[in-house]
């Protein structure tokens, strides 16, 4: 029998023995011995994304990191913030550009999962608003000719466009579970929609830090994250749970 089953058994057994003499005398009344005090822990979770450092190590064209934090507001609501930095070089067929900048995302997570006693896991949906400030450097590009007579010409201007910014909204779906005491693993997928994007004159941002790839055909994007956090408990709130 695992811990959960043992708990339930013990509670049922003690409940039966303790309430039987009283049940006949007091029908319809909640017996004080039946109530179990449940305390929910409230605090701050701080962690880092693991995919970004892995990609930094494995990919030549990418450097980045992300810090995640969430803070419990109510039994099922969390305030969540992500802060990160991306340095990505986009080597396309006909151009090469480097986008470098930082971003912050903030929003709420709602836990849809009903935890069993002693568990603190989450299956959640969330919303975020993200903003990013970045620069885009056009390293090189090809000039396309309609006529194959002359072939392609490659130009290397190295122009840097500074003070670019973008804003977007996200809807997330993910899980967060306690892998070790107070250590939580988080995985989520994000569906993003661009709200505002400043493209450089006569060029385009192919990647936005925090938003990831920008399409030619739409303002939506997609992301996936995997992070590990540590929980710092601040206080506890009791939850009264009556059992008949």
């Amino acid at each position, binding site marked *: 029998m695992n811990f959960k089953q043992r708990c339930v058994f013990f509670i049922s057994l003690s409940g039966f023995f303790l309430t039987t003499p009283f049940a006949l005398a007091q029908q319809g009344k909640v017996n004080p011995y039946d109530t179990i005090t449940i305390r929910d822990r409230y605090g701050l979770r701080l962690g880092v994304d693991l995919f970004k450092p892995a990609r930094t190590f494995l990919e030549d064209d990418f450097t980045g990191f992300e810090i995640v934090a969430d803070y419990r507001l109510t039994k099922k609501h969390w305030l969540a913030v992500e802060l990160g930095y991306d340095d990505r070089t986009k080597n396309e067929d006909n151009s090469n550009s480097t986008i470098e900048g930082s971003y912050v995302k903030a929003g709420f997570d709602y836990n849809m999962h009903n935890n069993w006693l002693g568990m603190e896991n989450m299956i959640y949906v969330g919303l975020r608003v993200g903003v990013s400030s970045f620069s885009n450097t056009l390293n090189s590009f090809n000039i*396309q000719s309609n006529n194959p007579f002359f072939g392609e010409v490659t130009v290397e201007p190295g122009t840097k466009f500074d003070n670019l910014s973008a804003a977007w909204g996200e809807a997330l779906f993910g899980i967060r579970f306690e892998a070790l005491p107070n250590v939580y693993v988080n995985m989520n997928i994000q569906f993003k929609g661009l709200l505002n994007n400043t493209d450089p004159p006569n060029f385009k941002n192919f990647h936005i830090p925090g938003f990831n790839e920008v399409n030619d055909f739409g303002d939506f994007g*997609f992301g996936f994250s995997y992070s590990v956090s540590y929980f710092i408990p601040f206080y506890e709130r009791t939850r009264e749970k009556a059992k008949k």
Partner: protein
Amino acid sequence: MRLFRYLIFVGLFLCLLGACERDDLCSAGIPKTPNLVLRFLDANITNDFKTVPGLRVVYPEVNDSLPANGGTFANDSIGIPLPTGLGEFTTTIVMVKDAANANLRNPDTIDIRYLAQEVFISKACGFKNEFILQQITVRNDNDNWIRNLLITNDTIQNEFQAAVRIFH
């Protein structure tokens, strides 16, 4: 715990999906660097279009010439490529009349001075050139079939209009 093991696998699968990007293609239908469109008119009756018989366009700078049907729209006009790049260029093009006939063959050399600017198309296509014509002249060789050149549209962004009218 089994639920979470299952979710881990789902998570890894979604991780692979995250690496998927739709391939943007630069389709052939998207207009790229426009050709220089020349229209041939009668030097005497300046509103009539006049075909140049046996026209051949030679680029001495690359030691090559356009194929017989390269860049022709109709009998009285032709679209020819200009060298691409960035900045100001001067290029020389030889327009040969009756190129196939050894007796009537008449080459005329044209010098074109123009400005080439880059214009962004899309992520898949990259950039194209747009040209601003500054000067177009014919070299005098005492046997010119080209009487006059007139720039009608100095900003070349597409091939819908002729940029230069050649009177002969």
